[in-house]
Structures are given as structure tokens and as C-alpha cells.
């Protein structure tokens, strides 16, 4: 006897950002591999166009959600709500900026071709799935889609042995942590009977509040390992400095932006949407991990000499900040707190910042992508004053200086923490940001205050190509504009609490 097969209904419109990316990516792969090399900038222009298309669709969906309200898609596999669209938009912005930075980089390094861009687009699909997922399996597949693309991207600079090394490290550790994640999924599945968020949530609906399940709890722990790894939270951060340093710089930007956004969105979704029943169990973990992450990121950055590595540690420290938002979200049942909006806002602002920062580092890296040491930045203010200004803005924003988006971001999470009376972590975070300010200052010292030596003058001149210039300039303007007038973004971010099904 054959059970009646019910084909799920699919709201294609709601999937449109995903579909645009998929279509664009496939076209790029097919056409790109069939034709000879495209003209200069064509690949990146195409990628940007696709991403912009997806972005437009996402914005349309955003408004649609505002009007029609959130819902689930495809047998509850995905949730279609403001949260997922906010994440989608963030990831798409990351794609656009990264593609612009990548353009000249690839030609400079003699690696031009459609593959990298195709991988960006495909990875973005993984990211989008992660932010939209409403099922642990879908989430796992999203993670893998993103991760596998990132492994390849990290290793894609064939001439730099560091790139290969970072690829292999990322790959082994990534798979390792994915296995933990997956085991967590299995245990949760065992404890709740499903991998779907709605069902996981419902599984303990009728059970008394104090009734927990060790299996599920351990599963949650394993799940968190995978997510912590993804967002580079200590002590699961060890891959980050090595991979950030080794990967081609634009890829690092992608890793730090899209990768982090997707990871955190997934973490928020899992913890806040699927596992609020156990929030008293996972919140202390987030607390302690956030503290360790903040400290590790800030302290280890102090002794670095490679700017990419410094920024890697700084991204760890930023992860700590976002974890504060997650922690705050764990104080209330459901999504009503300030935690989710502040984290998502932080992610959006950080995405633009980090893309801009690595954009500058890409240019300073010069041919070979190796001149990313502090000394390489000497004389930047003399050679390319505007680039130096942009770098300054980005770094100050990362340090959380007012009138930049970075301050708004930090303010948001600190506010969320204070709102849930987590003053201790707020203070710790601010103090760690003092330590990490030192690292930004060190870069600024190289940029502005140390005169270049004769040897530095002999080094290859820094070029600022159009596409990178556009990306960096746009990121800088965004950073400042949001810093001065953040109202609209804050309002938008506060909508992310309207989750599907709640």
C-alpha cells in the first residue's frame, strides 16, 4: 500500500533571491566554461549584477513580509520571515562587495576566471539556506554548501603555499566540526523525534518546564560546537587566524562577512527558535564562550605583525560581541528581546566594515598577496591618502568609535546585554574592545605615523582599481552614514523579531 504522496507547495516568489543566485551561478559555470576568457571585469560585473538582482528580489520579499507576514516554505523546511531576509540581504551585500574586491585581485594574481565567482554565488546559496533554514538537516546542508565552497576558495591561490595550507586546515577542521554538528543533530533527533525546528519546539510543549532530556542537551552541546566553529568563537577559533591569513584576501573578506553572518544567523535560529526550551542551559555557555572569545580575540591580536592575522583575531573579538547579543536573546523566551536585532544589526554593519577593510588589505597586499604585514602599510597615507582615510574609517569603526557604524553595532549589543541585566559581560566586552583598539591603532600608526623607509619606497606601488575603489568607497560612506544616522537600519533590524510561526 502506497502512502499518498503529497507534493509540497512551493512559493517560488519567496525563494526568488535563492533562485536568482542559483540561476546566475549555473549560467556562469556553463557559459564561463564553454567560452574563452571573458573581457576584463566581465566576470565580476556579471556576479555583481546577479547579486544585485537577488538583492532586489530580497528587498521585494522584505516588503512582502512586512505586508503579508512571515510564513514557512516547502513543508516547513525554510522559514520566510524578516530575520531570514535580513540575513539574506546582509549576505548579498557581502557578495557584492567581495566580488568587486576580487575583480582586480584575480587579474593581478593571474587567476582570472569564472570559477571563483561561481563559488561565491553558490556559497551564498549555502549562506542563504542557513539563514532561512527551519530544519536541522537543511541547516546542515546549508553549512556544508557554504563550507565546501569556502574550503576551495581558501585554497584557490595556487601560487601561495599559505593559501593551500589554509585550505587544508580549514577543510580538515571544518569537516571535523561538521561531524560534531551532525552528531548533535542525530542526538536531538533521537531526543525529540524530528529535525524540524517546529517539531523540536513542539516536542517539549506538553512537558513540564523542568523536564529536560540529557540526550537532547548533549545534542545541543554538539550542535553548538559546529556553530561556534563556524563563527570562530573560542575555543573553536583556532582555524581562524591561519585561514584568514592564508586565504586570498578577498576570500578572507568573504569568510569574515558572509561566513560569519550565516553562522550567527544559524546559531540564533537554532538556539532562539528551536531550542528556547533549554535556554537556561545554553545561555551560560554562550556567556562563557563570549567572554573567552572576547579576551582571546583582543589579547592575541596584540602580538601579531601580519595585518590579516590581526584582523582575524579582531573578527574573533567581534564574534564575541555578537555572542553577547545571542546571550541577551537567551534571556527571554522567544525572539522579543533586543538580542536578535542587535546581533543581526551588528552582522550587517560588520559585514560592510570587514569587506571594506579587507578590500584595502587586498590592495596593499600587492602582487603575490603577501605584503600584508604592518610594515607594508607604511607610507600608505603618503602614497594613497584616500585609501588611508578609508582604512582609518574602517579600523576606527571596528574599534567602536562613535559616528561610525561600528559604534552603532556595539551600542546595540551592549544595550541588549544591559536590557537583560548582563552588566558584567557588557563591561568585559567594552574592556576587551579597549585592548583590541590597540591593534587597530597599531595599523593606523603604520599607515599614518611611521615614515616609509627607502626600502618601502622601492616596493611595488599600490594601485587602486576602479572596482575596488567603488567597493571601498561605498563601504566607507555606508560606515559613516550609518554612524551618523542609524535610525532606519535600527528600525529595520528590530523587525527581525517577527519570526515565522510565532
Amino acid at each position: 500500500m502506497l502512502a499518498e504522496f503529497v507534493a509540497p507547495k512551493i512559493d517560488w516568489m519567496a525563494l526568488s533571491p535563492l533562485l536568482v543566485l542559483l540561476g546566475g551561478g549555473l549560467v556562469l559555470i556553463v557559459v564561463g566554461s564553454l567560452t574563452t576568457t571573458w573581457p576584463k571585469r566581465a566576470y565580476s560585473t556579471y556576479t555583481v549584477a546577479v547579486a544585485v538582482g537577488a538583492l532586489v528580489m530580497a528587498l521585494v520579499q522584505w516588503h512582502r513580509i512586512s505586508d503579508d507576514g512571515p510564513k514557512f516554505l516547502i513543508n516547513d523546511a525554510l522559514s520566510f520571515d524578516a530575520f531570514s531576509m535580513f540575513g539574506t540581504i546582509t549576505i548579498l551585500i557581502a557578495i557584492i562587495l567581495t566580488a568587486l574586491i576580487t575583480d582586480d585581485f584575480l587579474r593581478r594574481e593571474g587567476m582570472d576566471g569564472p570559477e571563483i565567482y561561481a563559488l561565491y554565488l553558490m556559497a551564498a546559496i549555502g549562506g542563504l539556506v542557513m539563514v532561512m533554514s527551519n530544519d536541522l538537516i537543511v541547516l546542515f546542508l546549508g553549512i556544508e554548501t557554504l563550507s565546501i565552497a569556502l574550503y576551495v576558495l581558501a585554497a584557490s591561490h595556487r601560487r601561495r603555499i599559505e593559501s593551500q595550507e589554509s585550505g587544508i586546515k580549514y577543510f580538515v577542521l571544518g569537516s571535523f566540526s561538521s561531524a560534531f554538528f551532525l552528531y548533535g543533530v542525530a542526538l536531538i533527533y533521537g531526543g525529540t523525534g524530528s529535525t524540524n525546528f517546529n517539531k523540536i519546539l513542539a516536542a517539549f510543549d506538553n512537558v513540564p518546564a523542568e523536564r529536560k532530556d540529557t540526550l537532547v542537551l548533549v545534542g545541543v552541546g554538539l550542535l553548538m560546537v559546529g556553530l561556534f566553529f563556524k563563527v570562530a568563537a573560542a575555543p573553536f577559533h583556532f582555524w581562524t587566524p591561519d585561514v584568514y591569513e592564508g586565504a586570498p584576501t578577498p576570500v578572507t573578506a568573504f569568510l569574515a562577512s558572509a561566513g560569519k553572518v550565516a553562522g550567527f544567523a544559524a546559531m540564533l535560529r537554532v538556539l532562539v527558535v528551536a531550542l528556547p526550551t533549554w535556554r537556561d542551559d545554553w545561555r551560560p555557555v554562550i556567556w562563557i564562550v563570549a567572554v573567552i572569545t572576547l579576551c582571546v580575540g583582543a589579547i592575541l591580536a596584540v602580538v601579531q605583525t601580519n595585518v590579516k592575522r590581526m584582523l582575524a583575531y579582531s573578527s574573533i573579538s567581534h564574534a564575541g560581541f555578537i555572542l553577547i547579543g545571542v546571550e541577551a536573546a537567551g534571556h527571554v523566551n522567544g525572539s522579543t528581546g533586543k538580542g536578535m536585532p542587535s546581533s543581526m544589526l551588528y552582522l550587517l554593519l560588520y559585514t560592510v566594515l570587514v569587506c571594506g577593510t579587507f578590500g584595502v588589505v587586498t590592495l596593499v597586499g600587492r602582487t603575490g598577496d603577501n605584503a600584508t604585514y604592518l610594515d607594508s602599510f607604511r607610507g600608505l597615507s603618503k602614497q594613497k591618502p584616500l585609501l588611508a582615510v578609508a582604512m582609518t574609517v574602517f579600523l576606527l569603526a571596528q574599534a567602536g568609535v562613535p559616528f561610525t557604524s561600528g559604534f552603532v553595532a556595539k551600542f546595540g549589543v551592549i544595550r541588549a546585554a544591559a536590557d537583560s541585566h548582563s552588566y558584567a559581560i557588557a563591561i568585559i566586552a567594552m574592556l576587551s574592545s579597549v585592548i583590541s583598539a590597540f591593534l587597530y591603532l597599531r595599523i593606523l600608526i603604520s599607515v599614518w605615523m611611521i615614515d616609509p623607509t627607502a626600502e618601502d619606497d622601492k616596493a611595488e606601488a599600490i594601485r587602486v582599481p576602479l572596482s575596488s575603489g567603488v567597493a571601498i568607497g561605498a563601504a566607507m560612506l555606508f560606515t559613516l552614514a550609518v554612524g551618523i544616522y542609524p535610525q532606519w537600519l535600527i528600525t529595520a533590524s528590530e523587525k527581525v523579531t517577527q519570526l515565522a510561526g510565532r
Partner: protein
Amino acid sequence: MNAAIATPTTTWYLLLAAVLFAIGVVGVLVRRNPLIMFMCIELMLNAVNLSFVALARALGDIGGQTTVFFVMVVAAAEVVVGLGIMVSILRKRPTATADDLAELKG
């Protein structure tokens, strides 16, 4: 032999999976050949698969098996890419162990 005792329950399978998983983890930690490390990860994935199937049976839910199917696809994709990366780096330095890949540190 008492039949009641003789039938292995889900717990047995799960424990077996847990042991397999732990062996995989230990393998990743102690082996220096990246290929073998990767094999150990495959062990971990298999442990998960085993758990899934056992749980699916216990719960009477086919979803666990479906999941295993996806895990296999992921494993296959990972192997392809992972071996690709390993080939590309090991081709240049065939004797390299995981410990030799330590240019990036600090």
C-alpha cells in the same frame, strides 16, 4: 541464551556509534597524515549515520534514514573537494604530514 537479553536494543547501537565516533575523533587527533585524518572524519560520519538509523528505527520515523542519505551525499562531496585540496598541496610536497603544514601560526 535468553532471547530477551539477546536482542540488541537501540541503546546498544547508539553506544557502538558513540565508541566509533570517539575512535574517529582520537584518530583525527593522533594521526599525522592528512588523508588518514580525513578517513577518521569519515569514521565519525559513519558513527552518526549509524546513530541516525538506529534512532529512526526506535522512533519509527523514516526521517532519520533520509538524513543518512543526505549525509552520504555530503560526505561524497567533502571527499571530492577535500582530496582535491590535498592533492593540490601534496603534489608539491608529497612527504608532508599535517604537522609540516605549519607555516601559518601564532
